């Protein structure tokens, strides 16, 4: 589209921009400000006490651990679904897509509730296992890492399926025909052709699920235990329980820095790759 003066664009964009400035930018500036100013004077005290706080360091480590595990598990579970979808005809794909889209649009609280019913000590999973094996089985799956992982992967799998599916659908069919004519066995085709060619989708799935996980709040709070406190839960704790806004804001800034750093680096790498390929 040809370039038209920016003045006209401003008329269209105006209301959305005003909202963004007043209700996004200003609040984010408030977070930064609150983290740096305690009682009206500048100080780095909040950051310093965070650095010394064992609670903070532990939950920082937990956040990375859970995010990495969640992203990796979601990829493992989501990839077969994307592969299955990519091989269907458009009609069947639209139908199976619903199976991915329904959970995608389902409230996180509905899922959390469902998992408390499914995974509890007397939950459906344990009860079924007890019946199958004929003995009382009570595997603890709630308020621990297992619960968090179940909740997270269930939430994240759709975010893996979409980009990986896009990558798989972009693979030229003639490549498959060529390797089959040459006599490649199906597993070889997968490892040597399908997987390498879907790497762009895999990479963006891993990055986006990891970044999303770092800010998770509801799932660790409802399905996790004391050892699964993530940074977001700590923000909530400082804001609402100890009313230490200074600390809460500092954690917020750190969380934002982590996310920006990862997303920024990923974007830079993508751009460099694009240039290398001459795209």
């Amino acid at each position, binding site marked *: *589209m040809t370039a038209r003066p*920016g003045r006209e664009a*401003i008329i*269209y*964009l105006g*209301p*959305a921009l005003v*909202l*963004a400035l007043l*209700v*996004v930018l200003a609040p*984010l500036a408030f*977070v930064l400000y609150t983290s740096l100013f305690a009682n009206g004077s500048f100080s780095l005290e909040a950051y310093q006490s965070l650095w010394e706080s064992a609670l903070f360091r532990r939950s920082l480590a937990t956040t990375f651990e859970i995010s990495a595990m969640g992203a990796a598990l979601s990829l493992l579970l989501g990839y077969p679904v994307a*592969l299955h979808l990519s091989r269907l005809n458009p009609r069947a794909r*639209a139908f*199976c*897509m*619903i*199976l991915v*889209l*329904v*959970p*995608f*649009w389902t*409230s*996180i*609280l*509905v899922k959390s*509730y*469902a*998992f408390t*019913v*499914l995974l509890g000590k007397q939950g*459906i999973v344990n009860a079924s296992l007890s019946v199958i094996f004929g003995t009382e089985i009570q595997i603890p799956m709630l308020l621990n890492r297992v619960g968090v992982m179940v909740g997270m992967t269930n939430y994240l799998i*759709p975010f893996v399926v*979409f980009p990986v599916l*896009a990558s798989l659908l972009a693979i030229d069919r003639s490549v498959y025909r060529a390797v089959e004519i040459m*006599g490649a*066995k*199906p*597993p070889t085709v*997968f490892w040597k052709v399908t997987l390498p060619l879907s790497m762009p989708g895999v990479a*963006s799935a891993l*990055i*986006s699920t990891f970044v999303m996980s770092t*800010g998770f*709040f*509801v799932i660790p*709070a409802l399905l996790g235990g004391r050892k699964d406190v993530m*940074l*977001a839960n700590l*923000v909530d704790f400082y804001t609402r329980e100890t009313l230490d*806004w200074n600390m809460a*804001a500092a954690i*917020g800034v750190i*969380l*934002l820095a982590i*996310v920006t750093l990862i*997303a920024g680096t990923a*974007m830079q790498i993508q751009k460099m790759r694009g240039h290398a390929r001459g795209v």
Partner: protein
Amino acid sequence: MDDTLQNDKLARRWRLFGLVLAVLVYAYLVAPSLIVIPISFGGAGGDLSFPPKTYSLHLYEELFTTATWMQPVLQSLKIASIVCVLVTAVSVPAAYAMVRYEFPGKRLVTILMMSPVLVPVIVLALGMYLYFSRLGSTGTTVALVLGHAVYVIPFVVVTIGAGVRQLDPAIEFAATMMGASRRTLFLRVVLPQLVPSVIAGALFAFLISFDEVVIAWFLSSAQTTTLPVRMYSSIHWGVSPVIAAVSTLLTVLSFFVCLVSVALQPSASRGTARANLSMTADPQVAPT
């Protein structure tokens, strides 16, 4: 010959393996949404076993007659409706401008407008909490509406932007040539063509606001509690069986929105605005 036969067998087995894996994951994805349905129809006399021994509408009756549940339901309906109208009105022109115009600082504007999906919600929610506290308006419905509105805008702008991208610019050019003013062009030429994506965008806005919990958790007070916040506290402090009924209704709502979104956006590879936004860290509004 023998070799190809063996290859065929291997191929079949390999495909079956893939299918089984995919089916298991599909089941895992859908299970939580489905399990709440039978539970919601049990519950007579505190019976929460699965499958329920007897079926009744007991939990629904309790939901619709308990004020501490109905108030949040109505509050969420109210907020989501206002957000839906407000955000749609703001996003249609914004999406149009983002697609059709080039101007200095466009990248910055894009980043600013898309930032609610790039920034962790908890940070945004904390910021809003601090900000509205300073203005003395935490806990008000206005704060909740504004908070949800900016959170929802990126999803709606991307959804409608995808619709704008599919319009033929030649039609707009022809209308301008024939003397249509900017307003006529937008209201009578652009808008009518955008109806499907505007409906999709409005629905997403409603559902995302209706389901949003983190911002509401920080901004709402006892008088303005939304349904997700009520559910959150209820799961946190001991599960009330009424949640099963609420969950079932929410699942039906999600299913409906999902069907509409599939119908209005037929390209499967496009996924939905929500996924597109999160799958590229690149804030460009360009998922086609």
